[in-house]
């Protein structure tokens, strides 16, 4: 039996851009982009679910994000997660990888009882690949990055194949360990029809607060109780609940400063016709080297 915690993130769907998504200053207008489940995190969840199916144990998915991130937690439930937590607080806004990994590591400590932590290699919005490793550091546990395959779980160690430049390494790590997962590690399973129907109405505290707003007949406390009874309540951790240091959260706890944002427009230039001869190709290579594209 191995218990897993999976770190998941809701990201803007940069692959399906429509309308005016870039602001004039070159930054992304997130409200114009549909929000999706970061794919590598989904693969991470898939690996955790396979561990559960093979060896038994519990899979818990957690996300830090705005209230609407509860969407992907429901999707985790649809795939088979046993429990999910939303980590959400206005004071978390503007967090860089340092502040995010601080909050996540404290949430993981609160949840406790884990053998494996899974995360996607990186999220498609920031592409930093830092949150997983930093979280492991803060928890003082080993980490294995670029995981391609979990070969087997032994009593005290897990055997993993990880990708390296030009090949792979087989490594063994002691529990608890944090793994960051590549997208090719597994095909993700589809949502299960029965779980969709069972959990489609799972709601976080903020979701329920939204329902009571403007409806004097509903009380949040009562709703929370009702949803807990039905096993449809998504617990939310706030800064206070995690007893976090405000100085280490959100913008305040984020030393990363964006130096410059550039809107790069790739435009095609002139076409050059190259003779399909040795000389023609030789000249092309010379030109590319002169332009510092080669060499």
């Amino acid at each position: 039996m191995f218990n897993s915690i999976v770190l998941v993130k809701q990201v803007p769907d940069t692959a399906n851009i429509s309308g005016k998504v870039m602001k004039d200053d070159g930054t992304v207008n997130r409200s114009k982009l549909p929000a999706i489940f970061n794919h590598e995190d989904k693969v991470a969840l898939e690996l955790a679910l396979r561990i559960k199916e093979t060896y038994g144990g519990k899979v818990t998915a957690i996300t830090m994000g705005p209230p609407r991130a509860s969407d992907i937690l429901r999707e985790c439930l649809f795939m088979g997660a046993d429990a999910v937590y939303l980590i959400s607080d206005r004071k978390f806004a503007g967090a860089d990888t340092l502040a995010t990994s601080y909050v996540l590591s404290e949430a993981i400590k609160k949840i406790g009882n884990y053998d494996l932590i899974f995360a996607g290699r990186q999220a498609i919005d920031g592409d930093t690949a830092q949150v997983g490793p930093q979280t492991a550091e803060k928890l003082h546990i080993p980490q294995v990055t670029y995981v391609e395959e979990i070969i087997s779980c032994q009593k005290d160690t897990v055997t993993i194949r990880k990708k390296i430049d030009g090949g792979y390494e087989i490594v063994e790590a002691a529990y608890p360990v944090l793994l960051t997962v590549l997208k090719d590690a597994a095909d993700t399973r589809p949502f299960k029809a029965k779980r969709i129907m069972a959990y489609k109405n799972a709601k976080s505290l903020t979701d329920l607060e939204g329902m009571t707003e403007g409806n004097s007949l509903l009380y949040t406390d009562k709703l929370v109780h009702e949803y807990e009874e039905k096993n449809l309540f998504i617990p939310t951790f706030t800064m206070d609940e995690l007893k976090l240091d405000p100085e280490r959260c959100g913008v305040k706890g984020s030393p990363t400063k964006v130096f410059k944002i550039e809107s790069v427009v790739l435009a095609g230039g002139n076409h050059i016709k190259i003779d399909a001869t040795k000389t023609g190709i030789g000249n092309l290579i010379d030109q590319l080297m002169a332009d510092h594209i080669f060499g």
Partner: protein
Amino acid sequence: MPNFFTDNSDLQFQFKNLDLKDIVGIAEDNYEQAKEFNYAPVNYEDAIENYRKVLEVVGDIAGNFIEPRAADVDIEGAHLIDGKVHYAKGTRENLKQLSQADLMGMIFPRKYGGLNFPFTIYVMANEIISRADASLMNIFGLQDIGDTIKKFGNESQRQEFIPRFCTGEVTGAMVLTEPDAGSDLQAAKLQAYQDSEGKWLLKGCKRFITNGNGEILLVMARSEPGTKDGRGLSLFACYSDSTVKVRRIENKLGIHGSPTCELQFNDTPAQLVGQRKFGLIKYVIDLMFRARMGVSAQALGVSQAAFNEALKYAKEREQFGKAIYNIPVVTNMLIDMKEKIESNRSLFYSTAIEVDRKEKLEELIDKLKEQGKPFAEESQKLKYSMKLVNLLTPMTKYILSESANKVTHDAIQIHGGTGYMKEFNVERHARDARITNIYEGTSQMQVVAASGGVINDILAEHFDVKEKKEYKGGLNRLAGFLKEIREIYKEALKYVLDKKDPTFQDVAAKDLVDLYSYLYVGYLLLDEADIEPKKIFVANRYILNSLANARKNFESIKNENFSDILHAEEILN
């Protein structure tokens, strides 16, 4: 990220306008099931929301996984190696995903592990899957076998077989056809006999068995030695164990992903399903309603796929300095295809709901009987529903499968020479469509089956009501044309009946069924156009086409175009 459920606006229209209230009410025991199962709906709206969300998953798997694998499945096909059938790689992956998503037991009760979905939603899933890969419907759509066990088997058989379908652990096959018993199923010979302990064993050969390699087989066999007709046939369930040999699989024109097997039963242990002698005359006839809807869904799905390819190609392909989409004859063909698909879809879901209603009324009556409650009112409803289903199911199968051939054929035409090449999908769609008007009863058999209801004019009252309805503006003009078609139908029917010639009636039946279908579908489309302006175009083209065709049907009958069949010997030899 194409989703074959959400990207299809006409399917969305049909889904939005489904009225399944009475059907879902019965299926969910007035929503009592929600107390026992956390995935059962608490009311009708919740049920519809469940169906929508699950169909979105079907659409996602179909669009993003099944469709991209379909061309390879067609090339690789299923194979027989050392007596064992192997699906194409893509087919295996498809089935795994559908099982993981809990979709292999959509129509079964929850207590056996199913989703307890209405038949209508299940065939909608079949349409979506067929658009992605028509050959997959032949395996996905065989959930009906479990349904027959559910309806006519005993409780221990239900518990033994149905949960295994639901998990996707097994697939099944309907084992009916024999070398000398195709359309004429009552000629089946495969022998069922009892050993000294009374256990049933099967011996003999079956042919053209779709997915005959399935682990659970539903076999029609002759249990009454010495009999020659349908009354000597019973239905059996058995496992495909070592006594069942797949002798060969067929090398077919299309649906390559679906293995078509020749099976030999060598004293195979089997269980009797239901009562002896009712195999064909009750159980198989009942199963056929649903199986024909499965094939109709396949026809509709593959038509949609071919149309989408044709439309896309027509927009991209430039000739004479413009996209061929803008060349009137091409535009006209595309509109014709679209009109066919949408009118077929209206007919299809209208029929599906009726099949659903019939099934649920039967369940309800069984339950009321058990509880010792009166059921006269339900019996009355069932009687009418049965009449409709007897007419609409074969009519739907006939029209949709013939249409699929026409639409896929035209899709190749729009592609020109390119469409004839294997690199493009349309030639596959045309090959896949070709079987739909042959199996589960040829079009000719469907016409025979539908003609009873047509000759007895069973929808007379329905049409009377429709004729009195006031339609908005231009639709009234179309309603007028339908009245004209009805007069033509009446006159044609009278002409045929007055002849009192069974041969003439047999051949004229096709024209009569056509005429009746224009009326039924025409009114469906008028009602849809009444609530959705975009449908006015479909209704308009359909009804105008129908009026022209109705005149032709009538002329064929009145002129006795086919009276020369009396001289067949001289003409044909």
